[in-house]
């Protein structure tokens, strides 16, 4: 491994969250962005080629070293660490609404899920999986929520675009408001319904 790859490995080992390429570049004043990319690639290949127990994962806009899934059961049995508890259906549904509709207010979330959302929203905020991203222009100017980097980390996603596309779902999702024109949107939606 080249010296930069070694430094990056040490840095990634010492961190407990994904580190962006930009952050990694600050480690060595002489390192270029391209150099960091090459070194990261070398590190990834080294882990794969030499069949290490860990791998380099790209996630939430950054890089992190994680153990390979195949060892999870043995490590848990030996009680060296514990797996993150499963998310409840209510949590997952609320996250799903926010992930696709963000920025989205509490009222819309409650309308879609058919249940009140106060408790779930609070707990998601406390766990930093969602955050307030602004306020709506609507009456009462309610707070709008969006997902955080930690949400991506929890799901092992690089970016929100890794979420399933509308056309990949069995039923087409209504495109969210920010990205589409009102009238076309409504027409397309009615079509999808029939």
């Amino acid at each position, binding site marked *: 491994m080249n010296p930069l790859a070694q430094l990056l490995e040490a840095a990634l080992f010492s961190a407990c*969250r994904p580190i962006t390429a930009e952050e990694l570049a600050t480690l060595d004043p002489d390192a270029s962005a391209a150099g960091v990319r090459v070194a990261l690639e070398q590190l990834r290949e080294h882990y794969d080629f030499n069949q290490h127990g860990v791998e380099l994962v790209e996630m939430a806009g950054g890089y992190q070293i*994680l153990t390979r899934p195949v060892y999870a059961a043995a490590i848990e049995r030996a009680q060296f660490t514990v797996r*993150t508890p499963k998310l409840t259906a209510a949590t997952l549904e609320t996250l799903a609404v926010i992930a696709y509709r963000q920025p989205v207010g509490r009222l819309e979330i409650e309308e879609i899920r*058919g249940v*009140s959302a106060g408790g779930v929203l609070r707990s998601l905020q406390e766990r930093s999986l969602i955050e307030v991203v602004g306020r709506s222009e609507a009456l009462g100017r309610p*707070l709008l929520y969006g997902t955080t980097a930690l949400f991506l980390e929890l*799901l092992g996603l690089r970016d929100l675009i890794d979420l399933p596309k509308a056309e990949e779902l069995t039923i087409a999702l209504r495109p969210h408001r920010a990205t589409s024109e009102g009238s076309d949107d409504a027409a397309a939606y009615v079509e999808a319904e*029939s």
Partner: protein
Amino acid sequence: MTATEFIALPEAPTIALGAGPGFVVELEAFSGPLDLLLHLLREEQLEIADIPIARIADQFLRAVHELGLNQAADYLDMASRLVRLKAQMLLPRKVDEDGWEDPRAELVRRLLEYQQIREVAVWLGRAAERRAEQFARGYLPPAPALPPPPLTLSLIDLLSAIDRVIVGIPSPVLHKVVARPLDVESATRRIEDLLAGQEQIRWFDALGSGATIADVLSTLLALLELARRGSLRLLQPTPFSPMVIARESPRPAA
């Protein structure tokens, strides 16, 4: 099998509807009224786009009742919507009437939308499980003695905090309205004590002397509740005659 016996079926809860004496289901299996509704439709292999409202409304009401969800406002809200829809569907309309809007359209739209969200939620759940198979570094040596990095505070964080505070505020703190509280519990105890001693009592006995409006209301609520539980019977022998409160011999619990 009674309605109070639940078996955990995490993936696909099965409900014995109609045929059996009750349900076999885990309460937590439903994340809301729309979920329960979708489940009923699936069980009966019915199309979302063409819901037989009358049938599904009855099944929903029965499910809510038997699952003990009567306390949950969200479920009751849906139940009342379904009952209203059922009534609307019964209204006569001309065969070739233009501009007739299917009263079910809104419900169908919501169900389809919710189904999409469910699909995404399942996807998210799988992604989270896959991610949970990979561990990050566990042991971190103690942090070096460096000056702390500059404090970060953002308006967004503050807004989130305000939001959390607001959710937690029990009531506006500016005004403390001390209402004369209803004390149904004491009224219940008083009635039960009286009925322990005698077979029948009168409304005025139950009320006691010097009763305030709060006492009257508390007593009335206590009587209604006890009657609902089957602990007593409320009788009025003739119109406008004083109410008679009679002890009921305890029945075996349903």
